[in-house]
């Protein structure tokens, strides 16, 4: 186990019990009435869901940056998150939000559709440029259809529901969402982890990786499946939570030897930590209505991205 893995595993183990106690009402297991019930049915599933979602987004960000050999890559670029969001928005549009499992199911179908489209366009050749362009187009198509759904919403309630949902959150989630997302994200992280050595070889460019026996088409399929599962499941249960996939690999990279393969597992742990802490913070903040987690992370992420660009610019100048 590497240093980064140990550090983030330890921090996560520390943060998890704290986050269970944190909230608008700080929980004291000894005195708070119904403490066991609140913990078991409300706070524990929410905390675990934060861990699951964060782990998926962190690992997919690390794999994506490794694949594109670009520290500015984000899994959101590839149309899978917008595809999943479109599916969920469709469920809300048709008023299925109340039915259990229907909204996440629609979101997973949306993510699957985006994955299939990506695979159909770019999967045959396995070229990185084609994959990127295809992903951007899928993302912008899904984004346009989502905007269309909002503008044609059947009523004002559906519209506000859609807009609210698009800013991801973990409020009012139950064990149901945990059981849905956890296996999919776990499988996705395993697929991404398995792509590690091929991503290492890609450090020397695509021709060298191929000359080292890397099957670039298999790698692309692994990534589409891995990112589809992690990001698709995350969006399905939590809505759009941006920037985790971008920020986390950056925070983790200096603690590793910078090989892409060494970044995936610690990024999953660090992503879990970031989302868990951020979700605890939005719970604690003394606001009238709870700040949406998606908004909070974007408020944190956008300035971080700008700082990153400034640093890169200085590096280039």
């Amino acid at each position, binding site marked *: 186990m590497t240093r980064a893995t140990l550090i983030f595993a330890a921090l996560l183990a520390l943060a998890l019990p704290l986050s269970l106690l944190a909230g608008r009402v700080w929980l004291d297991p000894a005195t708070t009435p119904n403490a066991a019930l609140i913990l078991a049915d409300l706070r524990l599933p929410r905390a675990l869901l934060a861990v699951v979602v964060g782990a998926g987004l962190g690992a997919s960000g690390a794999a994506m940056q490794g694949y594109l050999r670009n520290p500015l890559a984000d899994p959101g670029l590839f149309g899978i998150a917008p595809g999943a969001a479109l599916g969920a928005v469709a469920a809300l549009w048709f008023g299925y939000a109340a039915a259990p499992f229907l909204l996440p199911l629609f979101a997973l179908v949306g993510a699957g559709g985006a994955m299939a489209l990506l695979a159909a366009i770019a999967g045959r050749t396995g070229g990185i440029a084609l994959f990127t362009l295809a992903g951007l187009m899928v993302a912008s198509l899904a984004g346009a259809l989502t905007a269309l759904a909002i503008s044609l919403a059947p009523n004002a309630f559906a519209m506000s529901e859609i807009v609210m949902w698009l800013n991801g959150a973990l409020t009012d989630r139950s064990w149901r969402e945990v059981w849905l997302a956890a296996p999919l994200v776990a499988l996705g992280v395993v697929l991404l982890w398995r792509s590690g050595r091929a991503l290492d070889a890609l*450090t020397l460019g695509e021709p060298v990786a191929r*000359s080292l026996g890397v099957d670039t088409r298999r790698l692309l399929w692994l990534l589409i499946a891995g990112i589809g599962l992690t990001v698709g499941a995350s969006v399905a249960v939590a809505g759009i939570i941006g920037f985790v996939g971008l920020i986390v690999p950056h925070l983790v990279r200096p603690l590793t*030897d910078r090989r892409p393969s060494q970044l995936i597992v610690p990024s999953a742990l660090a992503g879990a930590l970031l989302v868990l802490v951020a979700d605890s913070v939005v719970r604690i903040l003394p606001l009238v209505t709870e700040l949406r987690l998606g908004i909070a992370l974007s408020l944190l992420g956008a300035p971080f991205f700008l700082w990153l660009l400034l640093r890169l610019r200085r590096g280039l100048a």
Partner: protein
Amino acid sequence: MRLVAHDLSIAERLSGVSLTLEPGSITAICGPNGAGKSTLLEAFAGLLPPDAGSVALGDRDLHSTPAKERARLLGYLPQAHEIAWDVPVRSLVELGRLPHGDRRAEPVDTALAALDIADLADRRAQSLSGGETARVLLARVLAGEPRWILADEPLAALDIAHQLALLRHLRSAADAGAGVVLVLHDLAHAMNNADRVVVLDEGRIAADGACDNALDQQVIERVWKVPVRWIGEPGHRALVTG
């Protein structure tokens, strides 16, 4: 194991190239810019599917050989020195073991020592000079212990001392039975160090044979269209223009 191109055509870049390369020797591929040298090398590395004709390693077609097996036999070093992440030098050289699925230290150490970069093993890739980077990337190829070394302009970023050291190393690899194929722009390097020179011009073979014949003054004037003459002794020749 021979490396054979048979009537090979790739896009507009190579047309009808037939060539049989023997292991245990150094073959230089020369030619003007855009002659198809790098394309031919990539085809020999099994990275470009031919539009017509074939490339074979021994008696097996390269494109029906499983990628891992091909990668164990053929070590390929492209011209571009791309290193995307600031990884430790040793981990870069270890990538040469990828086709073998192991991380044996011994071939990695041997490769580092052969290129005189054992002291760089713990450095980071982006802290290296151009010449150091070139040697690290070649060490990556050597660490895979390939039967064939296919290198595109391996001398380009090196100072003269390291050029000579590298050529000595490639010679000893060839003496040990490996096939060495180098794309070289510097005709004097080809003349003095190769056993055989293949001159490409506009995707076709313009000359092929022992250095003295293939890089004959008339061939150079015909293909490169510059007046030149060789001076010096065999093995120590220099090219002067005019």
